[in-house]
């Protein structure tokens, strides 16, 4: 009677794809449609339409990989912004653009505990009339709060200034767990630069909006206290079976 029961093997979904699902569900409930990013895109989509001048040092921010024919394994999910803005601009009069873009991204970074050359973003995009900086901060705080509640993380947030060519102004939401001292960069964001809207054929005098990107792998680490990002692509069952 006291013999321990036999353990049965159960299957597991990867923690990163689980977080993607949960966070996209939160956004969907707030009215954002889910779109998947391309893996490879053109320099126009990745940089030029996003207000990165040709040869501008800002292109270095992304530490980009290139294919031999000049195409780019995307360094950010913002590479879908122009496509989405362009395809939605006709209906903008009656329907604001509210989309989230899920995508695997690549940067030529040295691997260590907290840096991966392959990572996962969830970009958000919102365009309407008369959008304000306070809407951007309010939306991100609301999302941050929902994430914090969903995962019972008791997060606190603060806003820093940051620079990306495709936003003006650019901000970053940092988060830390209650009683912790270390702030983690969670959501880089900003008001969409008028040049980005213009490149997509949207009148930036009438419309404006904001965009942001949540690091899904970072968030997964925060959620489960995973201390080394390299586990995510290890394929190691000892890791995978914990989630």
């Amino acid at each position, binding site marked *: 009677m006291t013999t321990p029961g036999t353990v049965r093997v159960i299957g597991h979904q990867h923690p990163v794809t689980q977080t993607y699902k949960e966070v996209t569900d939160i956004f969907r409930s707030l009215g954002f449609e*889910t779109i998947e990013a391309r893996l490879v895109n053109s320099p126009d989509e990745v940089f030029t339409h996003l207000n990165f001048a040709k040869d501008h040092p800002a292109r270095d921010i992304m530490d980009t990989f290139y294919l031999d024919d000049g195409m780019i*394994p995307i360094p950010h999910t913002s590479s879908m912004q122009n496509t989405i803005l362009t395809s939605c601009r006709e209906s903008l009069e009656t329907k604001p653009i509210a989309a989230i873009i899920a995508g695997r991204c690549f940067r030529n970074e040295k691997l260590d505990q907290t840096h991966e050359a392959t990572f996962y973003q969830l970009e958000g995009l919102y365009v309407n009339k008369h959008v304000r900086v306070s809407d951007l901060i309010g939306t991100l705080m609301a999302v941050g709060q929902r994430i914090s509640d969903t995962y019972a993380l008791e997060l606190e947030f603060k806003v820093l200034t940051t*620079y990306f060519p495709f936003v003006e102004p650019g901000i970053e939401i940092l988060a830390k767990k209650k009683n912790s001292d270390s702030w983690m960069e969670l959501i880089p964001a900003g008001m969409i630069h008028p040049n980005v809207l213009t490149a997509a054929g949207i009148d930036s005098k009438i419309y404006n909006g904001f965009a942001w990107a949540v690091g899904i792998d970072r968030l997964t680490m925060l959620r489960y206290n995973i201390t080394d990002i390299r586990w995510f692509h290890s394929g190691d069952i000892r890791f995978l079976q914990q989630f």
Partner: protein
Amino acid sequence: MLISYSWLQLLTKKLDENPYEIAEKLSRSIAEIENITVTDLDTVFEVENKALSHRADLFGHVGWAHEIAAITGKSVTQNLPKDVSPCGTIAKNSPLTISIDDSDEKATRYVGAVVDLTNQPQSPAWLVDLLTALGQRSVSYIVDITNYVMLKHAQPMHAFDVAKLPSLNISVRFAQEGERLTLLDNTELTLTTSDLVIDSGGVAIALAGIKGGNLAQIDQSTNQILLESATFDQYTIRATSRRHAVRSEASLRFEKGLSPTVALTALREALTILTGDKDISDSSYVDCYPNPIELSEPIAISIDSVRHYLNKSDLRASDIVSKLELLGFITKNENNDILVTPPHERNDIHIVEDVYEEIGRVLDYNTITPTLPQRDASIPNRNDQWEFGYAVRDVFARTGNYETLSYSFVDKNAAGQVSSISEGVSSLEPIIDPSLVAIKNPAAPEMAYMRTSLLPSITSHVIENAKRFDEFGLFEIGKVTVPHDETLPDEPRLLAFTYYSKKESEVDTLSAGKGIWKTSLTYLGITNELVNLVPLKLEIGETKGFCFGYEIDLDVLQSLSIPRMFSQIPVSMPTINDLSFTLPADQIIGPVISHIIELGSSNPDITMNCVLTDQFQSPTMKKENRMSYTVRLTFSHLKQSLSDTKITPLRTSIEKSLATQFNAIIR
């Protein structure tokens, strides 16, 4: 970029805040201070260079002093170092001439001055300490002063030994194709016509904006120097720096786009320090500045718009004006608008949004009361592809497998491999030319190609796990890259599933893997022959055991998936019949079972299920070259019990058909 707090204290009136407080405010208003290093002498802040790509002015301390002024309300002071040693005088009647021989205007300004040195003193301790704290090396007094000025105003400078110059006729020009230049560090370059050089009497003496040449390098015996303070086009400098893989503190700054006005400010300050003369006259230097830039047109911002945009209804015009002026902007009130003119150094400010940002960031975004956008609550479209991906993940996890994520990059051996299905059998072949998916700048040789199939990368995870586990299924959903003529590559979303086991028999492994595949697909509502797909045997090298893999396009699966609906459950117990028969040994069993199932579905009232329960070969059969099989047929009827009389005709027709179609002998 390293920033000395003690220097900032000299540049800002009465800056006595705790450096940690200032660092937090700077993080909030400009860019995150990543590190704070405290030593006995100083506190040094570190900011990532790439976070300042848009702010050339912040590569000098004066730029930071303006930022601190705006966040603390304390103004910037013009500060010159007190403890310096004048060591020369402006050369009288110097034959210096300067020209810019560049029709493309890649050099906008070149200011030069010749200084006679009376001596070359040691750099004072404060200067050596400051340079050290900021990650620079003390070289000589002259060089240290040029670096000091650069770290203060962000303007790189250079000093040449006049005695070693071929001529004092200095020009900026593009290099000739193949022209040689040896740099200060003895690197030899072969230049192109896109590289800007500094020319003295027909000889290139420096790679403009990047590094000096070794020809006119100053040393302890130098008694006359030419000081250079110039402005070059950021893209030209960046391209040359990359072409020759030469980077320097100078190129770092020029790449960001410096304002030509700073060139003169810097030169005048260097001359003041070197000569001790606070009042540098215009005749002390030669200023080649063919097209002086003008201040940009003022940007009109309305106070109401700022209040709305930042959601700060109580913001006063005077608050806005004082912040902008502390940042160095010129402002003018006009009705309800403020006309804002950015200083020359702030060439990142062009549009009204730029000004909004200046105000918002120095006020601290954290003080803004958050709002939510005003919008209707329309329900977003559902992304069926995305949701189906999760339905597949759910099923394969339910059937006991682990979802893995492997890299999108593979090595040369796996490059161009593509899986396909032909007549119910999977295969993986090198189909795509690897050069079409090659990465120009791979992180490592094993990451040099975009993958065209998930199987090679998931197989590497199988091999690793086989060291610790006897049996497991792994699956992955991901996009692969399929090159396409002249357009972006196709990116099919694939599902890969692999089953590995250390079982003695390959057939048992195969059978278990097929079972998981079939169970999972059936649960997804897929009923066609794909459920019986024969997987690919995967090569796992020295690893003990067997591994089989499937790969399929998710869109194909989705198109075959039928939404789940309730089916009626038979009222009575099913009738079970075993059927044994032998077949020629070379007859594959899959089609035979499909045939039985097809016959069994001919009577609409009766449902029949068929499962293979046994297969063997006796010595006699071996001689006759035949195999024996037993299948279990389960018959059921939705509304009534089934008697033998109802089943027998069906069974007989199956037996007959097997005999004629497959040469079966019923046992």
